[in-house]
Each structure stands twice: as C-alpha cells, then as structure tokens.
C-alpha cells in the first residue's frame, strides 16, 4: 500500500533528522539546516500519507490506535518543527525530544494499520475542534519538555558541557513556562469542545469516562505546575521536573487510555 510506504519514508526522514540532532549535540556541532530540512521533508511525506488514508477511508486519523499514533507523531513533529524554526537558540533540544518521538514512531510501526469503523457520533465539527485543541496542547507540552530536558540534562557536568551554548536555565525555564501556559489554555479549550461534543453525542457533557477522567487529571497537574511555579518560586530544575510530570500524565492520557480501553469515551463506539 503506497500510504504505508510513504509513511515509512516520512519516519525514516524523522529518524535521520533526530539521529543527526543527537550526534550533533554529542559532537558539539550544529547542522541545523539539514535537520530542519529533513523534518520538513518528513512532515510533507507524512501529510501525504495521512491524506491518502483519509481519501481511501473517508475519515480522518482518529479511530484506531494506528491512526491516533500516526496523527500524533505528525502533530508533535509539526509543533517541534515550528519551535525549531522560530526559536533558533533552542534547536539542540532536538536531542532531548527526538528520542521520545522515536518511541512513539516505534510503537506506530508495531501497530496494526487496519481500518476501523467511524461511529455515527463522530460526524460532527466538534470532533475536529476537540482534537485540534488537544494537538496544540500536546505540541506545546512537547516543546516545554524539550526545553526542560535541557535544564535537567545540565544537572550533570557532561550535559552542561553539551548544552552550554543554549540560553541559561532561568530563560529556558521561562520559555518552558510559556509553552505550558499555552498548553493550559488549549487543554482547557479541548475539554470545553469535548464537553459540547459529548452533550450532543451521548446526552451528557461530562461522565468521568476513562479519557475524560485522565484529561481532567492532566489539566489539574498542569494547573498545579503553573500555580506552584510562582507560588513556591521554584528553581528551573524543580519547574522542569513538574513539566516532566505533566508530560508523563498527558502521554498516559493521549496514548495509554486509548491503548488499554476499547471505548475510551463511553458510547463512542
């Protein structure tokens, strides 16, 4: 199937870009234009693959685990590519974030690419709005993770020497905080759009189903991390640990709940 071959080509471009990014940090080089070009190439191929599947099945990538993984790899790569392009000083943080994306890509390759049935409750514009806000949230959190990972890596002498050319921890922590704040706004919008969809689709705006529960827990952890930052005057390192905690909970929500539950939203199937 051509869409799978195009997807593999896209993943290959991402992996080569990420590998160059990791090696560049280890060797203290900055081949940033090559990395950005490979990421953009990967995104173009990935977009083509998703478009081919969308055209073939008549619905977007949001039903099966394969579709959830491929669309989230795409949106995470897009978010990081925008940050990579627009914020040059943080480009070496690709060495931190790409291994996380490699894990998701490996998971994607092991997942059955078969098709699923589009439930009748998915025929609504609120689905796209809900998913779109969620992707912006997760993308912003990923960029925050990249920056926070640099702060944490600098806790060792080796990490400090490899990331010495990036801005200092205080500034990186401020950038991370801003990404988390943007993520908080979009996570809130995601919950609101999801509630509107749920009210029309299943006759309730909130029912504490597994995905709703974990999405709200993510919101709480995010709210806690933002509030703790200025209440407790956290150090950049402590703030980074909270960003890591938010990312872990968000990752479990986005990928863990759909993985272990056949009906993450009650009534969705």
């Amino acid at each position, binding site marked *: 199937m051509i869409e799978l071959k195009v997807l593999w080509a896209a993943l290959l471009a991402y992996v080569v870009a990420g590998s160059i990014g990791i090696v560049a940090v280890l060797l203290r080089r900055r081949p940033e234009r090559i990395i950005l070009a490979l990421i953009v190439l990967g995104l173009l191929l990935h977009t083509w693959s998703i478009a081919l599947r969308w055209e073939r099945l008549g619905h977007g990538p949001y039903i099966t685990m394969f579709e959830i993984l491929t669309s989230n790899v795409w949106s995470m790569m897009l978010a990081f590519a925008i940050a990579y392009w627009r914020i040059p*000083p943080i480009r070496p943080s690709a060495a931190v974030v790409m291994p996380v994306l490699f894990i998701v890509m490996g998971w994607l390759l092991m997942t059955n690419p078969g098709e699923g*049935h589009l*439930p*009748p*409750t998915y*025929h*609504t514009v609120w689905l796209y709005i809900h998913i779109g806000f969620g992707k912006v949230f997760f993308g912003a959190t990923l960029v925050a993770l990249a920056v926070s990972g640099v702060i944490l890596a600098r806790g060792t002498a080796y990490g400090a020497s490899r990331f010495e050319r990036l*801005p200092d921890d205080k*500034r990186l922590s*401020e*950038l991370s905080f*801003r990404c988390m*704040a*943007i993520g*908080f*706004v979009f996570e*809130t*919008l995601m919950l*609101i759009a999801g*509630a*509107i969809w749920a*009210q*029309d*689709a*299943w*006759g*309730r*705006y909130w029912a*504490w189903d597994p995905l709703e*529960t974990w999405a*709200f*827990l993510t919101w*709480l*952890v995010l*709210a*806690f991390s933002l*509030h*703790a930052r200025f*209440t*407790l005057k956290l150090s950049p390192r402590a703030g980074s640990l909270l960003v890591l905690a938010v990312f872990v909970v968000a990752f479990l929500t986005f990928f863990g709940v759909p993985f272990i539950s056949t009906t993450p939203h009650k*009534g969705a199937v």
Partner: protein
Amino acid sequence: MHAWIARLASLKLTLFILIALGAGILMSYAEWMSGTWALAVPLALFALNLMAAVASKPAFRRQKALLIFHLGLIAIVLLLVAGRLTYLKGSVELSEGEEFDGQLTSFEAGPWHWWNLGRVHFSNEGFRIAYAPGVVRDKTRNMVRYADAEGREQHAEIGDQQPLVLSGYRFYTSPNKGFAPTFFWQPASGGPASLGTVHLPSYPLNEYKQAREWQLPGTGIRVWTMLQFDEVILKQDGPSEFRLPREHKVVVHIGDLRRELQPGDAIELPQGRLVYDGLRTWMGYAVFYDWTIHWMLVVCMITVAALGWHLWRKFSARPWDA
C-alpha cells in the same frame, strides 16, 4: 477575621486543594470512595479559597483579566452545584406510535429538580438504523411527533448528534432498541379493552434471547412471550438496516398452554381474550435535564478568554529571553 481570610486565601492552600481534588478523582475512579464527597469537599474548599483570594489579594485589582479568570472559576463551581441540585438523568422506552406520558423507566435527579415532565408530549413515529458490515451500528434516524410551545403539532428527525429538546428536557436516541409484540386484551368481565406492547430485550445485543415474561392487565396471569424468525436482519458480510422480519411468529406460554401466534390470532382464556396484533419496534431514550449547561458554556468561554488575555499581556510585555 482578616487573618482568617488571609489564611483561607493562601496560594499554598490552592496547591493543596488541587492535590486533594486530584486524589479525590483517583479514589472515586478506583471506587474507593463516593464520587460525590471525593469531589464536593475539595471543590467547596476551592471555591472558598478563590473567593478569599479575590477579596484579599491586591493583584486581582491590578489585573482585570486575572480577576475575571478567577471569578469565572468560582462561577463554574457554583453552576456545578446548582446543576447537581436540579439535574435529571433518566431513560424511557417507547414503542412505535406510543406517546410519552411523563413517566420514566429509570432516573436519578437532584433534590431540587422541578418536575415538568408532565408538560412534555411527543411520540415515537419509528426509526431507521443503518448497520455497517460486521453488525456495527451506524446512523440512527428516529422520527418523532411533538407539540411545540404553542401546542402546534410538529415533526422532527432526531438521532446521534440531534436530541429532541422540550421544556428543557433533552431526549436522545440510544443503542437500546428492539422488537415489541403488540397485544389486545379484552377482559371477560366486559371492562375496557387494552392495547399493550412487550419490549423484548435489546436487539441485536440479545439476538438469541428474544423472550420476556409479563402480566396480563388486571389479572395475576403470567405470559411468557418469545419472538421467532429465521431470516437474517443484520448482516455480517455487508451493509444492512434494522427492520421488522418479513415473516415471524410469536410463541406464547400461559401456564401449561403453548400457542404459536401470527398477527390477528387470539387465545381464549376464562379471564378474557388475548389477541396478537402484530410486531412493532421500540426505542430507548436517554433523558437529560440540566438548565446550567448553556450558562456553563458561556462562563467557561469567558474564563478561558480571560486567561488567554492575561497570559498574552504578560508574555507580550517581555520576551522570554530578555
């Protein structure tokens, strides 16, 4: 008094409350404690903490967007309380052609729910449900007839994304639906004849359990009824649609008496005459009432807009790497 408010307004208390709320959700999710208390106590504390903070922290007077965001959070908690006190969630089953009489099959309601269901009138005019290969339910189209606020008769199609909303009550079609054999019962005593339907277990979920026991009105006689048909209604290997079988029979057991009935067949009993009228469908509706949902949406949008405005002003005032 002021010291007390200052303590209640503590930002560190906010952190503790957020942890308590998260813990409450997890404990309720794991069914270790009642969801009501696990959420109500932290949320009540949260509202008090926010109100005290808004009343005592000068930052809120300087930053209007931040003030609106926190007032919005308080309003959301208050609306949640109002919603839980007055909500209604229930279900009702209606046969094809049957009118809703205000009675629900099951429900849960807040203690202050004002029962207006008696004012709600609509009838189920039948439905069409498409099925994808593999007997996967697809679009539901349910025709309903109802009286609008002026008492005029109206027709509408509901299903999937589209509920019927009457007097604030929202009626949603559900996956719960099936076949309903219809009977006339004419008592030997000469009383009025009654028409009734037997809602067989949901189809296709209970495809091989299409039987139910019921009681003849005004008697203690138990009637066991089973629907039998041979044809395949919903196909595994192609698209199909929920419909009545073209040919069927109804098997009835009353004590030792066993009869197989076609539409129009009757059973004579000492207590009266039971006539099998024919087969219909029934639809299960989920019923929802919560007057706060529109207010909640408005407040949520204002709250998140205020948060976005506050963050925009804060971040645009100084670059991150300044």
